[in-house]
């Protein structure tokens, strides 16, 4: 069954290639039925999911971790690096929800993209994206993981700038790619450092774990930080988050896929994967937690003033990712992954619901131009309500349990500042999510420009499934306190739960607090957005609306100076120093060439003459010699 690991990855890749070729054929030769794209696109994640399920059941029945190494990939001097896949509990867990949620998003996307000309292209990318993510997750070593890591980056770039006719979208894609490159740079440094020390023994997680001691401690800090920079890039943490809102330029299923199942969770997964490393350097962990907390709060604040429905959701993702990093940083990897799991459901639902709204309003994204959608798309309304409740942390929806656990971890770790920020963020989360919800679904109808239509069942069906997931996923991690077993916690016990030493009273208290906090947020939103007026905007709100001018600051402090510097260099140094040198050389050669080129005058008669002269000279010489 080990080779199932390879199959899980290969199937999306093969289907992607197939769709791609079919798409090329349809463009170059003649249009073909869309079923040629749809069927492989939908079946690939499904098959992967089933395979994952088989593996999961195997693990569940107590099998060993699956390791599958089909062939040697690199043979560098003395180091041999295998193409290897690792199927332990963590990765199979990831595989399961990635493929499942991904599959739902695929189904949704078939309806969402049905009028698009690049239907086949889209699904080729989509499957490739999924495959890359699976490669990232199932890799048995950092190098293989890095392939998936970069593949994910590439596909995000392709998909974000999917509507490449508009330069804005292309810029967004570029931005995502470049910001990710910065993160990847850190990631690569970390990998390289690790490689330097661990490669002699082998370069897969197990070996690294075994030989982590060979890295000196100070360097270990550096490695941890460097890897975290990579995670920052992928998972959109301060300061490398800027690409995330812009990534909304892609089609909505792309956003859903990026935010729910694939890309952004890569950072969390990576940190969890290197838990053995981070456990050695708890200070870095705390740093990560602070970054996470800051991101959570920061994003939540920004989200309160956004008007683009997808951007709100994007910031909420960033905020939730902040929660996850809080957990990760504090060592509660299973908690973080639990939140990843629940988040996958309700965030996918949110995006797809938002997508449904957008579609029904003919691609209107401004929430203030929506309103009253309840009557039009009642089912979407219900699903969105459930998702919103879930993200706001209202019991018994999924978000409540995972978030509660994170808060518990934060409280228990003693970092009360982080805890406080997290709670504040929770208020804001409930606030901005319900703000969105009320504005979009309740309130005045603001769509006289459009004639809203209800979306098809192909779009709705995944919503329903996900809504059920948002409702029920939390119970998989139902804490012991509430009589649950915390199945996920147990499953991922290896990635430890540290919060067991908090007393039940405290837990109850925190639980209550959480509910209260959510209610406050919801209440605020309800009060404010019954009659909302955009014109009353304070300075602070303006700042918030403009996302704290972070983009502008980036532009001012990094982009512009660099651009000016390069311009200066291109004008002065390049022309006057480098060019002069090169030109002097070339001028010299040209001069010499010109002198020599006199004989190369393209005059065949001249060549013939010279040839004859040569022959004649030889003859003259012969006559001279022979006498």
């Amino acid at each position, binding site marked *: 069954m080990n080779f199932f690991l390879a199959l899980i990855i290969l199937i999306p890749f093969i289907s992607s290639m197939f769709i791609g070729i079919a798409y090329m054929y349809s463009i170059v030769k003649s249009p073909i039925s869309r079923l040629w794209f749809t069927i492989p696109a939908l079946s690939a994640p499904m098959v992967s999911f089933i395979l994952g399920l088989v593996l999961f059941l195997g693990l569940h029945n107590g099998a060993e971790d699956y390791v599958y190494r089909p062939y040697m990939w690199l043979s560098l001097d003395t180091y041999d690096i295998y193409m290897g896949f690792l199927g332990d509990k963590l990765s199979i867990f990831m595989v399961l929800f990635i493929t499942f949620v991904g599959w739902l998003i695929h189904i949704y996307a078939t309806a969402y993209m049905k009028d698009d000309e690049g239907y086949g292209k889209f699904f080729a990318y989509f499957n490739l994206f999924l495959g890359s993510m699976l490669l990232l997750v199932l890799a048995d070593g950092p190098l293989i993981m890095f392939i998936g890591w970069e593949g994910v980056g590439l596909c995000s770039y392709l998909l974000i700038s999917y509507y490449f006719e508009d330069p804005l979208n292309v810029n967004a894609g570029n931005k995502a790619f470049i910001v990710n490159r910065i993160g990847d740079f850190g990631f690569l440094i970390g990998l390289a450092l690790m490689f330097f020390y661990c490669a002699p023994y082998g370069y897969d997680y197990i070996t690294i774990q075994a030989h982590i001691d060979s890295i000196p401690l100070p360097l270990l800090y550096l490695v941890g930080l460097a890897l975290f920079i990579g995670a920052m890039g992928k998972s959109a943490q301060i300061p490398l988050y800027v690409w995330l809102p812009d990534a909304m330029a892609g089609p909505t299923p792309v956003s859903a896929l990026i935010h729910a199942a694939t890309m952004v969770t890569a950072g969390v997964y990576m940190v969890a994967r290197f838990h053995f490393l981070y456990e050695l350097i708890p200070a870095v962990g705390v740093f990560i937690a602070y970054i996470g907390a800051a991101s959570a709060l920061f994003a939540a604040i920004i989200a309160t003033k956004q008007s683009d429905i997808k951007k709100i959701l994007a910031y909420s993702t960033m905020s939730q990712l902040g929660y996850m990093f809080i957990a990760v940083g504090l060592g509660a990897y299973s908690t973080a992954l639990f939140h990843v799991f629940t988040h996958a459901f309700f965030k996918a639902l949110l995006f797809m619901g938002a997508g449904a709204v957008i579609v029904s309003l003919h691609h209107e994204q401004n929430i203030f131009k929506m309103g009253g959608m309840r009557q039009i798309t009642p089912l979407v309304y219900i699903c969105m309500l459930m998702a919103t409740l879930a993200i706001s942390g209202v019991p018994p929806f999924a978000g409540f349990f995972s978030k509660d656990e994170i808060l518990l971890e934060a409280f228990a770790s003693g970092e009360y500042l982080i805890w406080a920020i997290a709670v504040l963020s929770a208020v804001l989360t409930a606030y901005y999510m319900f703000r969105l919800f009320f504005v979009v679904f309740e309130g005045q109808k603001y769509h006289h420009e459009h004639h809203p239509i209800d979306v098809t069942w192909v779009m709705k069906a995944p919503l329903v499934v996900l809504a059920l997931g948002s409702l029920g996923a939390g119970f998989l991690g139902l804490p012991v306190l509430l009589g649950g077993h915390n199945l996920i916690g147990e499953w991922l016990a290896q990635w430890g739960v540290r919060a067991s030493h908090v007393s039940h009273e405290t837990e109850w208290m925190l639980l209550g607090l959480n509910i209260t906090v959510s209610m406050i947020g919801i209440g605020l939103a309800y009060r404010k957005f019954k009659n909302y007026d955009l014109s009353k905007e304070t300075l602070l709100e303006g700042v918030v609306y403009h996302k704290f001018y972070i983009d502008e600051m980036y532009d001012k402090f990094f982009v512009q100076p660099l651009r000016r510097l390069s311009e200066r260099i291109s004008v002065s140094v390049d022309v006057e120093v480098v060019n002069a040198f090169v030109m002097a050389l070339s001028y010299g050669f040209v001069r010499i060439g010109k002198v020599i080129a006199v004989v190369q005058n393209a005059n065949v008669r001249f060549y013939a*003459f010279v040839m*004859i002269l040569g022959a*004649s000279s030889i003859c003259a010489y012969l006559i001279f010699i022979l006498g």
Partner: protein
Amino acid sequence: MDMIFLILSFFAIAGAVGMVLAHQPVHSALSLILTIIALAGLFALLSASFLFMVQIIVYAGAVITLFIFIIMFLNVKEANLPKEPNKNITIFLGFIGLLPLNFLILKALYHMPSKALVLSQNGFGEIKSLGMELFEKWLLPFELISILLLVALIGAVVFGRKEEG
């Protein structure tokens, strides 16, 4: 015999010199005809009667005719002829340059056994013997030549057609 040989050689060489020196291509071509016909005479003198006819029919009758035809067809004006101010000097220099070459070859040839070449008796050089030889021993080259001619024909047609557009 010797007299005829000398006269024909003189005409051949005179024609060749005229061809090289003439400014107008038509004059060159006409001088070349002189050479060709004189050479045909030399062939006849060497009792190669078929080659004599072929030389006249193919060279004088077809090739040079075609040549003059093209020259007239293009009808190049005096002003459009290439300017060759140093023509005579280069020709002279060329001859000087070629002298050693010729000298060496002739020196080598001088030691070949010398024998007068005369009109052969008993049918040597007749068309029949040439034909028998050609179609018995040289059939393949003959066919190859025919293919070559065909290729040249097609090539000429392809080159010469009107430019489209």
